[in-house]
C-alpha cells in the first residue's frame, strides 16, 4: 500500500475545515460567548457558517481526481457534487438556528451539526466498507444527539431515543452484511468487491448479505417497512435537526448506498425491467420502493400534524428515489442526484418555514399554519414554493426530479416489467399526494389567521436561507441541465 498522505489531506480538506470549525465553535463558546447570552446564538451561527462555507468551497473545487489513498475514497463527479450539496444543505439547516431559541446550547448544537456534516461528506466519497460504516456512524450518532437536543421537550427526547434504537438496530444489520461481504470477497474496497462477486456469481450467502445491507439502506432512506422512526423524529426533533435529517442525511445516504449497490454489488443486481424477474437486489429495492410509495402517500392522507405529514411525504419520496437507484447504474446517476438534492432543498425549506414560525409559537397541527399569508407573506410564499415542489408542480425542481427519474426507469424496459408498472403507480399516486400538499397550502394561503395569532418575525439568517432554497428550487426547475451536466 503506498500511502499518499498529501493526496489524502488535499482530498479531505472539506472534512478538515468542518472538524476544525466544530472545535473552534466549542472553544469560542466556552471561553467567551457563553458569558454573553444575547450573542451566543449569533457567534455559534457565524462560526459554523464560515466553516461550512470554507468546506463547501473546498469540496466544490476539489476536482474529480479518482481513487484516493489506495482506494479508500473515490472522488468522482458524484462525490464532488454530493459533498458540495450536503454542505450547502447543512448550511441552510444551520441558518435556522436563531429561530430555534429554545435550544439552550447553540454552540454544542452547531458543533455536532458540523460533525454530522463531516460524516455526510465522508459518506459521499467512501469507497471502502469500513470507511463507509464509520462515516455513516459518525453522521448517525451526531443526528441522534441533534434529534434529542431540545431538553425541555419530551417529544424531542422521544425522537432522539427512537431514532437511536432504530438506527442502532439498522447499523447492526448493516455491519453484519458488511462482514459477510468481506468474508465472501476478502476485501473491503468496493471496486474489488465488485470484481470478486462478478467472478463468483450469486450465492445464498450473498443474498443474505444483500438483504442485511438493504435493511440499513431502508432505514437511512426512511423507506417502508423501515420508516417507523421517521414520523416521530420529524415531529419531535428541533426544526434545524429535522431539516438536516430529512435533507442532507438522505442525500448522503442515497449516494453511499448507490455507490455500494452499483459499483460494489452491481453484478448481483437482478432485473426487474422485464419479466421474468431475476434474483438480485433490484427486486428487493423495488418492493421497498413500492411499499414506500403506497404507505407514504396513503399514510400522509390521515395526518393532521404538519411535521408527521412531511415525514410521510418523505417516505413516499423515498420510494421514488429508490426507483432512481435502480435506474442509476444503467442511465447514470444524474436524475437520482438531481432528485435527491432538490428534494433536500425543499425539505430544508419546509422545515425552515416551520422553524421560523416556531419562534412565534408551537407549530404542530396543520391549523397552526392558518393565516400564514397575513402573519408573514414571505414565509407563506416560500412555503408555497416548497410544498408545490414536493407535489411535483412544474416549473419547480420537484417536478423535473420526478420526471427525470421516471423517464430513466422507463428507459430500462418500458412497461414490460415491474419497474415500469411501479412508475405508473408512482405517477398515479402523485395525484393522491397533491391532495395532502394542498391541505397544507389551504391553511397557509387560504384560511384566516387565528384570533390570537401575532405577525411572525423571521431572523435574517433564516430569511436568507429560505430565499436561497426557494430561489434554487425555481432556478434548478427552469434549468435542470445545470445539475444534470455535472455527470
Amino acid at each position, binding site marked *: 500500500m503506498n500511502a499518499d498522505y498529501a493526496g489524502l489531506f488535499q482530498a479531505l480538506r472539506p472534512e478538515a475545515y468542518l472538524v476544525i470549525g466544530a472545535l473552534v465553535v466549542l472553544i469560542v463558546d466556552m471561553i467567551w460567548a457563553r458569558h454573553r447570552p444575547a450573542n451566543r446564538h449569533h457567534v455559534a451561527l457565524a462560526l459554523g457558517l464560515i466553516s461550512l462555507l470554507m468546506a463547501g468551497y473546498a469540496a466544490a473545487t476539489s476536482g474529480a481526481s479518482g481513487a484516493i489513498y489506495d482506494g479508500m475514497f473515490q472522488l468522482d463527479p458524484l462525490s464532488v457534487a454530493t459533498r458540495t450539496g450536503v454542505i450547502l444543505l447543512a448550511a441552510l439547516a444551520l441558518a435556522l438556528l436563531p429561530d430555534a431559541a429554545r435550544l439552550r446550547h447553540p454552540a454544542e448544537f452547531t458543533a455536532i451539526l458540523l460533525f454530522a456534516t463531516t460524516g455526510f461528506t465522508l459518506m459521499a466519497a467512501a469507497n471502502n466498507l469500513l470507511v463507509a460504516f464509520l462515516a455513516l456512524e459518525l453522521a448517525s450518532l451526531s443526528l441522534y444527539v441533534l434529534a434529542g437536543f431540545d431538553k425541555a421537550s419530551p417529544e424531542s427526547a422521544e425522537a432522539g431515543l427512537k431514532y437511536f434504537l432504530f438506527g442502532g438496530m439498522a447499523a447492526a444489520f448493516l455491519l453484519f452484511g458488511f462482514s459477510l461481504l468481506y468474508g465472501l470477497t476478502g476485501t473491503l474496497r468496493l471496486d474489488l468487491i465488485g470484481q470478486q462477486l462478478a467472478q463468483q456469481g450469486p450465492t445464498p450467502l450473498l443474498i443474505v448479505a444483500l438483504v442485511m445491507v438493504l435493511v440499513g439502506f431502508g432505514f437511512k432512506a426512511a423507506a417502508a417497512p423501515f420508516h417507523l422512526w421517521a414520523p416521530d423524529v420529524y415531529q419531535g426533533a428541533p426544526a434545524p435537526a429535522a431539516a438536516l435529517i430529512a435533507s442532507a442525511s438522505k442525500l448522503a445516504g442515497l449516494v453511499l448506498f448507490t455507490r455500494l449497490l452499483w459499483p460494489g454489488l452491481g453484478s448481483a443486481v437482478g432485473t426487474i425491467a422485464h419479466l421474468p424477474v431475476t434474483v438480485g437486489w433490484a427486486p428487493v429495492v423495488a418492493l421497498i420502493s413500492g411499499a414506500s410509495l403506497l404507505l407514504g402517500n396513503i399514510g400522509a392522507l390521515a395526518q393532521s400534524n404538519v411535521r408527521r405529514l412531511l415525514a410521510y411525504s418523505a417516505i413516499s419520496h423515498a420510494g421514488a428515489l429508490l426507483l432512481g437507484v435502480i435506474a442509476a447504474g444503467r442511465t447514470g446517476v444524474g436524475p437520482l442526484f438531481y432528485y435527491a438534492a432538490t428534494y433536500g432543498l425543499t425539505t430544508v425549506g419546509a422545515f425552515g418555514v416551520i422553524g421560523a414560525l416556531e419562534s412565534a409559537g408551537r407549530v404542530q397541527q396543520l391549523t397552526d399554519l392558518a393565516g400564514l399569508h397575513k402573519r408573514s407573506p414571505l414565509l407563506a410564499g416560500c412555503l408555497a414554493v416548497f410544498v408545490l415542489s414536493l407535489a411535483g408542480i412544474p416549473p419547480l425542481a420537484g417536478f*423535473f426530479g420526478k420526471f427525470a427519474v421516471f423517464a430513466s426507469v422507463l*428507459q430500462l424496459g*418500458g412497461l414490460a416489467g415491474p419497474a415500469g408498472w411501479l412508475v405508473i403507480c408512482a405517477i*398515479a399516486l402523485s395525484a393522491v399526494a*397533491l391532495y395532502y400538499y394542498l391541505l397544507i397550502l*389551504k391553511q397557509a394561503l387560504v384560511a384566516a389567521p387565528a384570533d390570537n395569532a401575532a405577525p411572525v418575525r423571521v431572523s435574517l439568517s433564516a430569511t436568507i436561507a429560505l430565499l436561497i432554497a426557494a430561489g434554487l428550487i425555481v432556478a434548478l426547475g427552469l434549468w435542470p*441541465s445545470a445539475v444534470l451536466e455535472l455527470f
Partner: protein
Amino acid sequence: MNALPCTIYVSFTGALLALAIGSRSAMAARVVALLTALTAWGITLSAASRFVPAAGLQELVNAPWIPDFGIRYHLAADGISLTLLVLTGLAATAGVLFSWNITERTGEFFALYLALIGGVYGVFLSADAFVLFVFYEIAIVPKYFLIAKWGSTNREYGAMKLVLYSFAGSALVLAGLLWAYAAGHATGFSFPELVAATGRLDLTQQTGILALVFLGFATLAGMFPLHTWAPTGHVAAPTAASMLLAGVVMKLGAYGCLRVAMPLSPAAFAVLQPYIAWLAIIGIIYAGLVALVQDDFKFVIGYSSVSHMGFVLLGLAAANSIAVSGAVLQMFSHGVIAGLLFAVVGRMVYERTHTRELAALRALPLHRLLPFAAVVFVLAGLASMGLPGFSGFPAELTILIGAWQTNPLWALAAATGVLIAAAFTLRVIAVAFFGNAGRAGPLGPPDFEDSAARPAVAPYPPITWPEKAGALLLLGATIYLGLSPDTLLNWIRPALQSPAFHAILSGGAP
C-alpha cells in the same frame, strides 16, 4: 406573429406586478390586470390580423432547453392555436372586467388569475409535448386558490375536486407520454418525434398510450363520465374563474386531445374512435338532462358547459376535416357563450340577489329589476341553444354535418342534445328572469297594478360599466362569429391540412 410568445411573458410579468402592487392599492392591481389582459389580447389580435393561414405550425421560438432529455423550448402556432389564443385574450379581458368588484386580497386574486392565463397561453403555443405539459400544470394550481379563497357555495370541496381531477388527468397524460418516449426510444418530446416513437410500438401499446393521453386531456375537457368536477368546480368558483374555467381551461383539454393525443397513432385512434364518440354523445345528452332539473341557476350553466363540450369531443371523434374544424369553432364559440352565461349568473345576478336558487329567483321580477342582465342572458341563451345569427349555430351545425359523414347515427343522437339544450335554456330563462311575469300573464296581476307605490322597485345596485363593457365584448364576439364564421374557419381549415393531422383525418372518414 413573432410577438405571440410575449403573451406568456406579459401575463406572468403582470401577475408579479399585480402581486407586488396589490398590497398597496386594490385599484392599481385591477388596472394592472386589465392592462395586462388587454396587452396580451392585443398581441394575439395583431398577430391574427397579419396571419397568413398555412398548413402546419409556424415557428416562433425553438431553443434547446434540457438537452439531456432532448427537450426544446419550442413554441409555434397555426390557425387552431391562433383561434384559441384570441379566445383566451378575449375571455381574460372580460374576466378582469367582471371581477372588478373583488375587494379582498385583490392583488393576489389578479396575480393568480394572470398566472393561470399565462399558463393557458403557453399551452396553446407549445410545439413540444414537455413544454405543453409544463404550461398545462402551471394552469392547474392557481385554480385551486382562486376557487378556495374567492369562491362561493361549497368552495373548498369544489376547488379540491376540480384540481385533483385536473391533476389526475395530467398524470395520465404524463404516464402516456413517458411510455411513448421510453418504450419507443424517442430522442425528444417534439410532436413528430413522439408520433414516430409511438409508431415503433405494436398496436396494443399504441392503443394504451393513446387511451392514457386522450383520457387525461379529455378529463379536463369534461368528457363523460369524468366530467363531475366541472359543475361543482364552476359553481364554487368566483365569476371570473368560472368564466375562464368553462371558457378557456376546458379548451386546454380539448386542444390537448387534438394536438397531442390524436396524431400519436392513427391506427389506435381508429380503435378508440367509436368509444370516444359515444362517450361524447352520452355526455351531451346526460348533462343536458341533468341541467334540465337543477335547482341552482349556476349548476344549470355548469352542466350546459359539459353538454356543449360534448359537441367538441364528438367533433374530434368524428375525425374528418369538417367535424374537427367545427369542433375548434365550437371551442371558441362555447368559450364566449359560457363566459357570458357565467358572468350574468355569477356577477350580475348572484352578487345582487345573493341567491341562485331558481325557486327564490322565480319570486323576483328580475327582468324589471335587472333589465340589462335579462337582455344579455336571453341573447346568450339563444346563442347557447344554437340559434342562427350566433356563433353556436355554425359551430354545432358543422360538427353535426361532419359527424353525419362519419356515422349518421352519431349525428342523430347528438342532435337530440340540441333540443335538450333549447329546453333547459328556455326553462331557466323563464324561471329565473320572468318568473312572476310568466305566471301572472302579460297583463300583470293585481298586486303589480300599484307597483309604482312600492318603495323599492329597483333595490339592487345598477349594472356597473365594467360589467356592461365585458358583456358587450362577449356578445359582440358571438354575434360577429355567428354572422361570419369564415373568419375563423379560414384559419382552422388550412391548419388541418398539415401532415400531423392528415393520417387521422383521412383515416377516420368513411
